[in-house]
């Protein structure tokens, strides 16, 4: 199963599901941000030291840590 963390720089993926283990307040925020099922995400690059992932979601750029990016299931687009 591919997660957002596995996406490589420059790749666009589509969110397939959010891990139900994610705290409810966090998952609803992720959905609001544009990480709902079916939403496209452009992975821009990995931050230095493999610490974070830089992604473009809707009209913003965010940095997500591994811990949460691992819990977002995606498929290549």
């Amino acid at each position, binding site marked *: 199963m591919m997660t957002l963390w596995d996406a490589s720089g420059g790749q666009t993926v589509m969110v397939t599901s959010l891990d139900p283990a994610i705290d409810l307040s966090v998952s609803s925020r992720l959905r609001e*941000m544009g990480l709902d099922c079916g939403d496209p995400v452009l992975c*821009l690059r990995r*931050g*230095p030291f493999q610490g974070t992932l830089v992604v*473009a979601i809707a*009209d913003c*750029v965010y*940095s997500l*840590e591994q*811990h949460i990016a691992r819990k977002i299931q995606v498929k290549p687009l």
Partner: protein
Amino acid sequence: MKRIILVGKPNSGKSLLFNQLTGLRQKVANFPGVTVELKSGKFEQYQLIDFPGAYSMSTLTRDEEIAVEKINQALLDQQTALIICNLDATRLQSSLMFGMQMQAMAQRYGKPMVFALNMIDEVARFGHQIDVAALSKDLGAPVYAISAKTLEGIAEFKTAVLQDAEQAATEINAEDTAALPALDFSEQVKQSRLLAAKYGIQSTVVLKHQNAIDSFMLSNLSGGIAFLLVMFLLFQSIFTFATPLMDAVETVIGSIASFVTDLTGPGMLADFLNDAIFGGLGSFLVFVPQIMVLTLIIGMLEDSGYLARAALICHKPLSYFGLSGRSFIPFLSAHACAIPAIMAARTIESPRKRLITMLTIPLMSCSARLPVYALLVAVLIPDTRYLGGLVNLQGVAFFGLYFFGIVTALLVSLVLSRSSLNDDAKSDMPFILELPTYRLPHWKPLIHRVTNSAKQFVYRAGPVIFMVSLGIWVLGYFPTGAGGLQDSYLGMMGHWIEPLFAPLGLDWRYGVAILMSFLAREVFVGALGTLFGMDGADENIAGLAANIQADGLTFGAGMGILLFYVVALQCVATVATLKAETGSTKLVTGLVIGYGALAYLLAMLCAQLL
């Protein structure tokens, strides 16, 4: 006075709009006792209040929680006449996501609301046009296209908003409304997406410029180098750029001093003016330029959008110490002042990391330490320059002191994160950080901020230093008169405390200055200035550093004082803020004692070993 409140998502240009509407005539309440930083200013007959930015009404971090709490209060308040929601026209989806949630709340409470479609100049630059009339119709609320930067549309906006504020709020029964179930915003989220798709700019166009810079700033090698360079220049510039300004202040105070003492002639009044006023207060004012330079650079980094990148770069390294990348911003701003930094820690996602950040913030060298560092560095370190003046040995020593504070903070964090401090389940909120667009800072608010920081510094410490200088002078002048410091009342008291400072290689004059600076650290310089002014026949107040050198402060003891000041928590205001934010007297008392003991130990080691 009736109020207008300004809300919006972070980085949407809200602060600049606020500044333009209030003409910078604002009050910032960010000192003890005040729990939230709400800026308020006069906008015609209204009071305009700038609310903290938030991404959504369903909150994740403490700062958002506070923002939403405050918004709810304002919605219930009879005095609230109008809500202005600021939108970033280049990022309609995320702006409207918050804006439409806000609109739903405003409707529920019967408050009129308008949208300010800010950054319209950028939209034009991207070659796009937004059909404002149609957007307004779809939203069912007035929308005004403006640019807070170029001032396009601002005049019309002001007139229109004043009219909108006149319309009466719908009468609602607050109790009934409060009893209604919490709003479900899924409809608003959906709508915001549709409207953004209909009116907004394609995100790839907007993000292109930012991505290009990020591919440099966030790459492993160039990003790391850029980060270190920015940090080094930050600290070096406090020393290098501020020096001419400091010399100027010194000269001005010196000539005022000689002018005034010429007028008064010799005698007790002249002694008093020279020692207590020009020696005490004067030697403290000399450091104001450094505080201004520091504020300027931190402000520039913040406005340019670089700080968020720095936080990202630091996330992984900081996580080894039990901290978050978001701890970086409070840590950096703590170098100006710990109090706003402790409040900035509210943005940290995990309560546990937030607590650790707050507890270690006092170890960052705030600007109140600057006078102490600058004085003693000038005493102990030669003014040698390398690379054609770019690197200055004293600057490097400064950097070393800051660095020592940072390293100590990281070590303390490590210890705290291994302890069972605040170990609840909610501690695990993820690190999600928006990276805003890179922008050239707008100079006007920046200059305002810089002068404000100087004013605050002087107002806060000035009176304390004045009182202490006065007290020290009176105790040191009597009963013996000029030149009899050793046998004065102060001299007698000083000898009682001498044993405490003897292991640090310091005589009682330093002891008095150190004890006094538990009121505020800057007092150290003022107190020492007064003491040395009274002691020496030297009338030259500009030369406190030279006086100390001539008096023979040893290198080890001097370094000991420096390390003592890096570590000790000597600030009443910081202690009060920490208590308010952590809610624990025990924790904060422990912190004061712990840092105090560590500081003493380090100073003793320095004095004995160096």
